[in-house]
């Protein structure tokens, strides 16, 4: 895929980002202030150019995640760009604020928060953050620093990832997030709002499927299934925000 196409997928996926606010394990990707979005696309373009020059493969998912893989390795990396404060440990601040009202910080700059982060797709992998301002638009050096880090990480992984991996996987958490977001978007009178409230009390959802005009929730290992039916409004919502919903519907229609 050429770089322009990759960038336009990132731009298109921007409308799905609000789902992440309702996601218990949010997806990575580009989350910046609107006025910075175009600058970030430019940064991304320059980085992609360098990555491509090094033979990397780049994929963009339905939800706007950016995946990079090195030519010599099977391991994949997530790349995220977001605004984050340069605080070392948020837990310490949270603990402090339990007993006092206000903490003054004079060692962080609130206007300089744009950060590029990378992480291996592997359980227990940690994010590594790079402040964009550190590289002063020297994209070549920036991309090299990132690639160097990736190569270094790969060297320590002796066994190749055995997990099946696809660019667009759809998890139960995604569907739950879609239900919560739909509840918020369609208002308190909607069916999704009701279901969202109900599902928040459920500790474990084993499986959840959204097909046709029906949501099936499987709550435990025992066969305890509940069905929830929805109408046109919800259908339009899932059509727009849920990966693979349209395909599922066709399958459902064929059944009938």
């Amino acid at each position: 895929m050429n770089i322009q196409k990759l960038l336009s997928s990132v731009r298109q996926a921007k409308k799905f980002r609000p789902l992440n606010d309702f996601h218990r394990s949010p997806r990575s990707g580009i989350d910046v202030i609107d006025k910075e979005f175009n600058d970030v696309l430019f940064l991304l373009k320059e980085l992609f150019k360098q990555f491509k020059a090094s033979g990397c493969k780049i994929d963009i998912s339905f939800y706007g995640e950016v995946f990079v893989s090195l030519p010599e390795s099977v391991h994949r990396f997530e790349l995220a760009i977001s605004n984050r404060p340069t605080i070392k440990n948020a837990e310490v601040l949270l603990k402090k604020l339990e007993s006092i009202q206000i903490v003054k910080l004079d060692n962080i700059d609130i206007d300089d928060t744009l950060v590029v982060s990378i992480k291996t797709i592997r359980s227990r992998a940690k994010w590594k953050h790079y402040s964009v301002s550190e590289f002063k638009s020297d994209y070549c050096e920036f991309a090299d620093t990132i690639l160097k880090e990736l190569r270094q990480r790969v060297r320590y992984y002796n066994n190749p990832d055995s997990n099946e991996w696809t660019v667009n996987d759809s998890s139960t958490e995604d569907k739950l997030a879609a239900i919560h977001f739909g509840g918020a978007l369609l208002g308190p009178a909607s069916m999704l709002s009701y279901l969202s409230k109900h599902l928040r009390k459920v500790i474990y959802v084993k499986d959840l499927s959204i097909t046709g005009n029906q949501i099936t929730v499987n709550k435990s290992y025992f066969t305890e299934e509940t069905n929830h039916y929805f109408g046109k409004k919800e259908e339009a919502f899932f059509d727009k925000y849920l990966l693979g919903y349209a395909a599922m519907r066709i399958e459902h229609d064929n059944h009938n």
Partner: protein
Amino acid sequence: MKNKNNIICLGVNELFQDKQLHYPATTLPSLCFFEFTQTLQHIIDNAIKLLFEQRLHEVTIQTSNVNWYFNLTDRYHHNIRSLMHVDAMTISFSGSLRPYKQSHFSTAKISINQLKFNQIPISSINLEQLTIPLAKGLINKIQQLSRQYSEQEDLYYGIEPIVNELRALDEKVAFALHIDSESQLSLLNIKGNQIYAKMETLEIEMNYLSEQLLYQVFGLTKGDWLSYKPQNDATLTQLQFEHCRVYDNTLNIIGPGITKAGILGKREQYINIEFGVVE
């Protein structure tokens, strides 16, 4: 080198304004960051001015100067509408994640003085300013209300013994009095309550006028640090203006004292300004 910035970090709590909606835990930020800048100070000053001029309790302004940090994602989320609430002495921020329309989380209220990096200036009260026409007019109004207040007060405390006597008599005497004591008693009670309510309105009006007097004549608002030295007394009183009230011919300004170390003490201090001096 950049100027030393004044970044403030606050905790965030869930806000229940709409019982219908229960918000998922993922929509609650962990921390609120904002920079206390000159511009923000200016906005707050203007809001406080509005509070005084329009007799408001709180002013709410939509703002984009705050950042909400989420621990789950370890970043700021931008899909949030933020409001700043300003009252006479404190500010707080609340917000709502789109697509929600009502604020559903808020920070604690923090005192505006606490935000400032520099030492808070202490303004002194100069009694000579009370001789300007504006001050005189306001003082006249306050005194007029104060007179009305004491008249009502006399009346209120005048009724009380009668009610007590009647009640005692009613209990002592077995047969009915010639006057219907029951109805008289309840009439007097009603009257007493009416007077009390009137006294309260007068008091609120007097407090409002005295706040106006302090604001328009001395330029003082709640939260300011004051110092005052009475004419025939050597002791200097320093305090943070928290509230004020009028009693007879005296205006009391009340608030926690400022210690020699330049911080707020625990004990309440008073500044008494007598209006009689002016006339």
